[in-house]
C-alpha cells in the first residue's frame, strides 16, 4: 500500500505533490526532497565549490521551502522558488565568507574597458584554496574550472540556463532580475567561458 502510494506520488506533477504536502502528508514532503535534492545541491555546489558547505546550504534551502509550503502559490513553478532560495543562500554565503570568487571581469554594469578593469576583483579564500577545490575530483573538468572563474551572478544565470534548461524569462523571474540583465549576464558568461576554456586548453 505504502509502495503504491509512493509510486503514485512519483507520477504526480509538482503542484499536486505540493497540495498533498499542504495537507500534511509526510511522503509528499519526502517526494519533493527526492525530486530536487540533486538540482538544488548541484547549483549550490557549483556556486560555493565546497561539498560540505553546499550540503548545509541545500539543507537550509529545503527547510525554508518546506516549512513555508502553505505559502506556495500554484501559479509559480516550485522549481523556480527552490532555485531562487538556493541562489540567495549561496550568494549570501559567498558575500559573508568572501570565499574564492576569482573574477575575470568587472562590474556587469561596466561599459568600457577601463570601467571593467577598475571594477574587477580577485578574492582569495582565507581558509581554503579555491584552486585546490576546483581541482577536486568532482569539479575537475575544464568546463567546471571555467565556470568557477565566473562572477557568482554570471554563474547562477549560466547554470540555470544550460544545466537546468530554464528560459531567459524564468531565470529573470527566479533571480529577480530584469530580462535584459539576464541576457547580458549569459552573454558575458559565454564569452568568458570561451576565453577561459581557450586559455585552459592552451596550457
Amino acid at each position: 500500500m505504502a509502495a503504491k502510494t509512493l509510486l503514485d506520488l512519483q507520477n504526480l506533477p509538482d503542484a499536486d505533490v505540493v497540495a498533498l504536502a499542504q495537507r500534511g502528508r509526510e511522503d509528499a514532503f519526502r517526494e519533493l526532497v527526492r525530486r530536487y535534492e540533486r538540482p538544488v545541491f548541484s547549483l549550490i555546489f557549483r556556486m560555493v565549490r565546497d561539498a560540505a558547505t553546499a550540503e548545509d546550504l541545500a539543507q537550509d534551502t529545503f527547510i525554508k521551502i518546506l516549512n513555508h509550503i502553505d505559502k506556495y502559490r500554484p501559479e509559480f513553478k516550485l522549481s523556480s522558488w527552490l532555485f531562487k532560495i538556493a541562489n540567495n543562500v549561496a550568494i549570501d554565503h559567498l558575500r559573508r565568507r568572501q570565499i574564492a570568487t576569482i573574477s575575470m571581469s568587472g562590474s556587469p554594469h561596466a561599459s568600457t574597458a577601463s570601467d571593467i578593469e577598475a571594477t574587477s576583483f580577485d578574492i582569495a579564500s582565507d581558509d581554503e584554496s579555491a584552486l585546490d577545490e576546483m581541482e577536486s575530483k568532482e569539479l575537475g573538468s575544464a568546463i567546471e574550472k571555467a565556470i568557477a572563474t565566473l562572477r557568482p551572478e554570471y554563474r547562477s544565470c549560466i547554470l540555470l540556463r544550460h544545466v537546468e534548461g530554464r528560459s531567459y524569462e524564468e531565470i529573470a523571474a527566479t533571480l529577480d532580475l530584469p530580462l535584459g540583465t539576464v541576457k547580458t549576464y549569459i552573454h558575458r558568461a559565454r564569452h568568458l567561458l570561451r576565453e577561459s576554456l581557450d586559455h585552459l586548453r592552451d596550457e
Partner: protein
Amino acid sequence: MQHRHLLPNEIDLLLDGEVGFGVAPLRAHVDGCEDCQARLARSRKIVDELEDLEHFAPSVRFAERVMAQVQIVEPWHIAALETAQRFVPRSASMRMVMAATASAVALALTSGAVWLTLHADLTLYSINLAAGRARTVLMDSAASIIGTAFGQSGLDTLRSSGLRGLALGAGVMIVAVGGATFGLRALASSSRRTRE
C-alpha cells in the same frame, strides 16, 4: 548577405535558436563565412558541454536530515475530515445502515425543532408551567424544613416579614452553621493538643 563578421551577441542569437526577421541574414552570413562558422562551432561546443554537465548527489542521509527539521502540520479541517472518515464503516451494507440511521436521527431532530418553532406559544406556556411547579415544590420544601426547625410560630413570623425576613433568617442560619462548624473544629483541635 551581410559582409561583416558576426558580433558576439549575434552568435548568441544563433546559439539560442532564435528565429525571426533579423536572424535569417545572420544564418546566411555564417553559411558563407568560415571564420564565423568556427566561432559559432566553438560557442556551440561550450553550450553542449554545459548542457552535458550532470547533477551532483548530496550525501545519502541528506533527505533524512532535511526531514528531521521540517515541521509537518496537518490543517485542522483536514484532520477533522480524516477523523470523521475513520468512523465510516468499510462495508457498503454497513455504510447504508449508518446513513439510514443518521438520516432518521437528523429527520427527527429537524422535525422536533420545526414543531417547537411553529408552536412557540405552547412551548413558552409549558416552560412557565414547569418553572412555576418547580418554584412551588422548592418553597414547600423550605417551609417544611423551617417549620420543623423553628415551629409553626417561626414559620408564621418569617412569612409575615416577607422577603426581608426570609433573607435575615437565612443569614442568621448561615452564621449559626458557620459558628457551629468553627466551634467544633476548635474543640477537636484542643482535644488533639491535649492528647499530644
